[in-house]
């Protein structure tokens, strides 16, 4: 494969300016060739630096400071507190740490269930829609609606459906089916976890569906034909060919779904507002509340850094395990 780092020099130099205005800045051709990729990357690099990397550094610095509302105008003046913010965050016997730990467990449970269900539904839908049938195109468009709808519009609609007195859910559960004695609350109390999970799965599964469908297109038809000749039924083909072939796709998909769900802020924020009920107190909302509602940015930053460390650890372990699995599978 040829690369453009060293194009034939004769041709490069022979390229005439073609009567155009000579460019204002004429660097030697060699230098221009070397610097060109960096120039092309420069805007992207600068932006990443300004909006992601520098704030991350600032966030780490902030986590070592006592940054309350008095220091927002001049955060550099906030006093250093060393590891106090971290100690406060992980002191699980005190209220702050206890709440954080609780929120962490809620988030883990929520993420595992949501990712699992999204993956399951998305995969099943993709496998069932692998073959052509009447209405397949229309159904596919319908299935993409949750992905296309803006989060807040979709979640507001769900919050309307979950209203105790005016919502569809209680109308069906209580009025029509008579499953409960009274109208349950969905957006406060323990049920809020179920409500949040439902919305999250509704919104998230189409992404899994899309990616798995893409993965299915890469499985050669001959494999199915060969299996059919050997007498494998439809279900067996799904189990023996489809699912194993999807493994590399699934490894990326599950990781991406995990990170998105774990960090999800929009869904709980629109569903519950600035402070979520205890049963559905996801970590991003929890940190938001610790920072912007009680105005302690230092503690909020320490919690963010801890969250990032946790995600880094999980991702590293996941990548290690899956890549090892892949290697042994290849042998």
């Amino acid at each position, binding site marked *: 494969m040829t690369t453009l780092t060293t194009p034939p020099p004769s041709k490069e130099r022979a390229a005439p300016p073609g009567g155009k205005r000579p460019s204002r800045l004429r660097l030697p051709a060699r230098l221009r060739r070397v610097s060109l990729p960096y120039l092309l*990357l420069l805007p992207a690099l600068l*932006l990443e630096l300004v909006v992601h990397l520098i704030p991350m550094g600032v966030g780490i610095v902030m986590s070592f400071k006592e940054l309350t509302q008095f220091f927002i105008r001049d955060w550099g003046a906030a006093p250093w507190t060393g590891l106090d913010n971290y100690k406060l965050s992980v002191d699980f016997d005190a209220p702050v740490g206890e709440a954080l730990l609780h929120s962490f467990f809620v988030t883990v449970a929520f993420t595992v269930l949501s990712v699992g269900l999204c993956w399951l539904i998305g995969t099943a839908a993709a496998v069932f829609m692998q073959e052509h049938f009447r209405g397949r195109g229309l159904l596919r468009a319908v299935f993409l*609606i949750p992905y296309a709808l803006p989060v807040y519009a979709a979640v507001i609609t769900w919050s309307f459906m979950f209203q105790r007195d005016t919502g569809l859910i209680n109308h069906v559960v209580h009025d029509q089916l008579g499953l409960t004695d009274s109208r349950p609350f969905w957006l406060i109390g323990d049920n809020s976890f179920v409500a949040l999970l439902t919305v999250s799965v509704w919104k998230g599964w189409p992404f899994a569906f899309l990616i798995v469908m893409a993965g299915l297109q890469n499985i050669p038809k001959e494999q199915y034909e060969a299996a059919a000749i050997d007498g494998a039924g439809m279900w067996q083909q799904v189990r023996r060919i489809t699912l194993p072939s999807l493994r590399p796709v699934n490894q990326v998909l599950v990781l991406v779904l995990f990170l998105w769900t774990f*960090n999800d802020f929009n869904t709980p924020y629109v569903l519950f507002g600035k402070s979520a009920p205890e049963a559905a107190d996801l970590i991003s909302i929890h940190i938001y509340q610790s920072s912007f509602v009680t105005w302690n940015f230092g503690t909020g930053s320490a919690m963010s850094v801890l969250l990032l460390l946790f995600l880094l650890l999980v991702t590293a372990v996941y990548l290690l395990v899956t890549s090892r699995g892949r290697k042994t599978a290849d042998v």
Partner: protein
Amino acid sequence: MAAPRSFLWSRRIFLTLLAGFVLLPVYVMVSSSLKPLQDVSGSFRWMPSGFTVRPYFDIWKTVPLADYFMNSLIVAGAATVCSVVIAVFAAYAVSRYRFRGKRVFTVTVLSTQMFPGILFLLPLFLIYVNVGNATGIALFGSRAGLILTYLTFSLPFSIWMLIGYFDSVPRELDEAALVDGCGPLRALFRVVVPAAIPGIVAVAVYAFMTAWGEVLFASVMTNETTRTLAVGLQGYATQNDVYWNQVMAASLVVSIPVVAGFLLLQRYLVAGLTAGAVK
């Protein structure tokens, strides 16, 4: 290959239930937006007692929805254009050149995907406030600040998708253009970009959807005049009386641009996701 009955029946049942699950909120949104207020203030009814389009006129008066709409359009539009242009340059560099630090760049850009938004929010908030105090450039609360923030959200994913797309454009094409005397930039815009239009459209759709749907930064970094739809829509719901029919009408109205755009361009987006995901 004939599918067995069990497979066909499972498929029928599963897909029907799933379609019902997906469409339920859509039905609620559409039907409730056409109901009179007394219908949405009492117990839910599948069939409205009356039919009215009043909510669609009232939504513009209850909150300044048109202003929010304009803000969202400007912010999402500008973020999309900038992020696509920047991603095209970056992806071209990664796809066509070998250079020092290439791996570091791609890994760094991709790993920003995994960082929790809340991690940037606090520092960015403080940085914008401090930059404003020091230089008088209003980033906090301004559209510019939001555009700057949003365009980096879609950037990593856009670069990743475009690298895949550009890789699939045969190198011989732009090499020929270079040999014919084009500069690298002309080769990019004359040859590579036209050949990768589906990928670029996909990236643009994705960037627009990301910006149009973002809530966290919009809720912290906007003020009265720069509020976007993501925040503004909550205006109907925080009053004592919740005008649910108006909330639903407004939700539908703000969804139409993205859903229409998405359904029109979904072929490209799906193809783009595929190129990125299954390389």
